[in-house]
Structures are given as structure tokens and as C-alpha cells.
């Protein structure tokens, strides 16, 4: 199926998404990689305010290339999500509803997605020039000292992703592979 969704996400948005669906995201999304995640989780542990409200939001795991003069943002494809696994459940507890990255998630994160109702979207790795075209405006909102790893607010239009883990506990990486796996000679 194909869907177009706008952030912040509602429970209804999440319920209709299933693994393998193509989704075009519109609205504001936030960037964060490991270093920013670590800081967010420290704030949560200390019961302090976060630099942005996570309720219904999507975090994109990306560290963009520098923008050329005249560009909104440099190439901006996903980074490996596994590095964020230890931090993600704490953010879901604060209302996070979507994550965009590449590569598989831990069982603990998949369980958390089920209980908190959060979806993991895969963006194609290594197509940063194409994905940058769907990013229309950029604003830095926290941790400027982290350079490309700072938290940015991105305004996106039809940002293309695939549902990899839905709120029903399904995993496209596992299911997709099963479907095309052939028992080889080894």
C-alpha cells in the first residue's frame, strides 16, 4: 500500500501502516544520531525538559553532508539505526511515534515499538542526494557543538520511506528475506 502522512502522527496513522508499505512523509521531522540521543536520554533521566516536544514526532537518523552555497542541506541519507537502539525506548516513553534509519533494530526496540505504538521506517541508505531533494527547510534547534550530529528540524515534502517495523511486531527485514531466500549449496 501507499500512504501520505503528515506529522505529528496520530494513533490512526500508525494503525493503518504495515510492513512493506511505501510512505511519503510531510511536515516537520527531527534529526538525531547517537551523540544527540545520549544527551536527550540524560535529560530524561534527570527529569529535565527536552529541546523539543517528542509527542507524535519522527526522528531521522542522519548526519548530513555540508550544504553547498545555495543548497538547503547537503546529501542526507540515513545512518545505521542499531547504534540508537539503547536510547530509543526512553524516547518512545516521551511520545516518539516514528524513527527513520537503515538497518535492523534490536528485539528490545521491536517490543517497545509494539507497546508504545511507534513505527520504524527504512529510508534507502546511500541515496542522500535524492533524499535531500525532499527536504525543503532546515533549522538547528539544539547541540550546535555536535556539527553534523546536532539536532535539526527538517521541513519535508513527500519524503520517501518504507515501513520496516509496524506496531504489530512485524519486521520487514526478516519477512522480506524469508520470501526471497533460497536454500543454497552451502
Amino acid at each position, binding site marked *: 500500500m501507499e500512504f501520505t502522512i503528515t506529522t505529528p502522527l496520530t494513533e490512526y496513522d500508525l494503525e493503518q501502516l504495515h510492513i*512493506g508499505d*511505501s510512505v511519503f512523509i510531510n511536515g516537520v521531522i527531527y534529526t538525531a544520531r547517537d*551523540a544527540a540521543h545520549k544527551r536527550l536520554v540524560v535529560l530524561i533521566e534527570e527529569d529535565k525538559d527536552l529541546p523539543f516536544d517528542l509527542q507524535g514526532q519522527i526522528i531521522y537518523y*542522519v*548526519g*548530513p*553532508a*555540508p*550544504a*553547498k552555497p545555495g*543548497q538547503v542541506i*547537503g*546529501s*542526507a*541519507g540515513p*545512518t*545505521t539505526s*542499531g547504534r540508537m537502539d539503547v536510547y530509543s525506548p526512553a524516547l518512545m516513553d516521551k511520545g516518539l511515534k516514528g524513527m527513520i534509519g*537503515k*538497518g*535492523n533494530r534490536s528485539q528490545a526496540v521491536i517490543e517497545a515499538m509494539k507497546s508504545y505504538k511507534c513505527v520504524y521506517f*527504512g529510508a*534507502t*541508505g*546511500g*541515496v*542522500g*542526494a*535524492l533524499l*535531500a*531533494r525532499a527536504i525543503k527547510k532546515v533549522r538547528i534547534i539544539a547541540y550546535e557543538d555536535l*556539527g*553534523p550530529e546536532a539536532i535539526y528540524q527538517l521541513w519535508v515534502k513527500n519524503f*520517501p520511506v*518504507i515501513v*520496516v517495523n509496524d506496531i504489530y511486531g512485524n519486521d*520487514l*527485514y526478516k*519477512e*522480506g*528475506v*524469508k*520470501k*526471497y*531466500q*533460497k*536454500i*543454497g*549449496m*552451502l
Partner: protein
Amino acid sequence: MRQIQYSEVIDVVAQLCQETNFFLPEDVLNSLSKAQSEEKSPLGRTVLAQILENARIAAEEKVPICQDCGAAIVFLELGEELELTDGNLNLYAAIEEGVRKGYKEGYLRKSICHPFTRKNTGDNTPAMIYTDIVPGNKLKIRFCPKGGGSENMSAIKMLSPSEGIEGVKKFVIETVKSAGSNPCPPIVVGMGIGGTFERVALLAKKALLRSVGSQNTDSELAVLEDELLKEINCLGIGPAGLGGSTTALSVHIEMLPCHIASLPVAININCHAARHKEVMI
């Protein structure tokens, strides 16, 4: 003795940094197009179409194919009858300077940092430079920006000689399987077999510089490459790991004799952004 100038080396390297990051080489493009026409999964075909469209946009706008503009890996073939002139630099310093210049002027992402503090060196140096001294009076520079996602999925193992060729096959299949979607498949698999612990890793890296889809000059290795490619594509990982019949584009093997007690094997995985280019000065 033929003379070349340091400034020329700097400029050539700076240009290589940019060109490799903006333009996906012909061999990779051809292999991806072929994969797109043969891929069985509809989602897989969509991903391959995105990859090809991305390469077109990157080349047209002269922006990086991928935001991970890689560690700067440089293989040199330095002619014995070559002399480097002018300046206070040595050849390696000239290459580092070229990397600094290329990554800065090309708006390429600098991705090299201190292992513990994670503080970025700020200019993508140090480059990883390997040199062969060869006959002649030329300098060949082969440049390969190598992404972290696929590098992290690489592996090295000292097998017991009794494990033999079957052990080698098993190790490569297991490595690719556990890498799954992380190294941005379809991947290119560089394999080193033999040599010693440090040499086998270098062989695997060097294997990645070979033209994608080319055949090994050693006919036995060519057969093995072919067999392993088929086997890897039976894993079902597919483009972007979403399931499909194209997990790897090519398997490249470099082999050397080894110690009677050892059987070293290294698997260096490259992503579909298999950037590489060489220039002869």
C-alpha cells in the same frame, strides 16, 4: 629521472576526492542497471531505481552520492625513476593536503575522529595510504572513499588450514548474512585469502578497487567468485535489505601464499556506493 611537482599531486588528489564522491563509476552503474532488470522483488526494483536516480542527481548537481563521504583510502604505485620536486613536503604530506583541500572545497562530509573522545579531526585526515614501489617513472594514484556502515560489517579470521576452501566459503556467507541490511546492499564483497594477519586485510581492501563485474585473471578464483556470488544472492537480503535476489553485485578475491600453519581470510564489504577511481601522473 622524471620529475613531478608536489602541487600537482595535491591537485590530483583533491580532484579525486570530489570526483569519486560525485560520480558513481561506469562499472558500478552498469552493474546496478543490470541488477535492476533482473531483480525479482518489486520493492527491490524500486530501491535500485532510487539508487540509479540518486547517482544521476549527484552527478548533475555535483553533490555527494552519499552523505558519508568516507575515509580517504589511497593506493599508490610509485615508479622508481620518479623524483618529486619543490616544496618542503613529502609525498604523503602532499596526499594529506590534497585530501584536506578536496573535502573542504567539495563540501564533503568529514568523518574521521578520535577513537575515544570522538572529536572530529576536521579535515578528513589522516588518509590511509599504501604504497607499492614499481618499475617506471609514473605515479598511479587509486582513490577509494570508504563508508563506515559497510566497513563496520567487515570481518577477518585466522582459519585452521584444515577448514580449507569450504571454511572460507562458510566464513564469507556468514559475514554477509549477519551484515544483513546494514552495509547498504547490494554490496561488493572484497576478499583476501592467504598472506598474514595484516596483509590479508589489505588484500581484501585492494580487491574492492577492481572493476565491479570484472573477472579474476586466475581462472580458479574466477570460478570461486562466481560460485560465491550466486550463493550470496540466494540469501534473499536484497536491495536495502528489504528482501530480494540482488544482495551482492560482485565478489572479488585476491590471494597470496601463506604460512603452513595458517589460513587467513578477510572480508571487506563495500556498499552500492562503491566509489573508486585511479589516475596516472
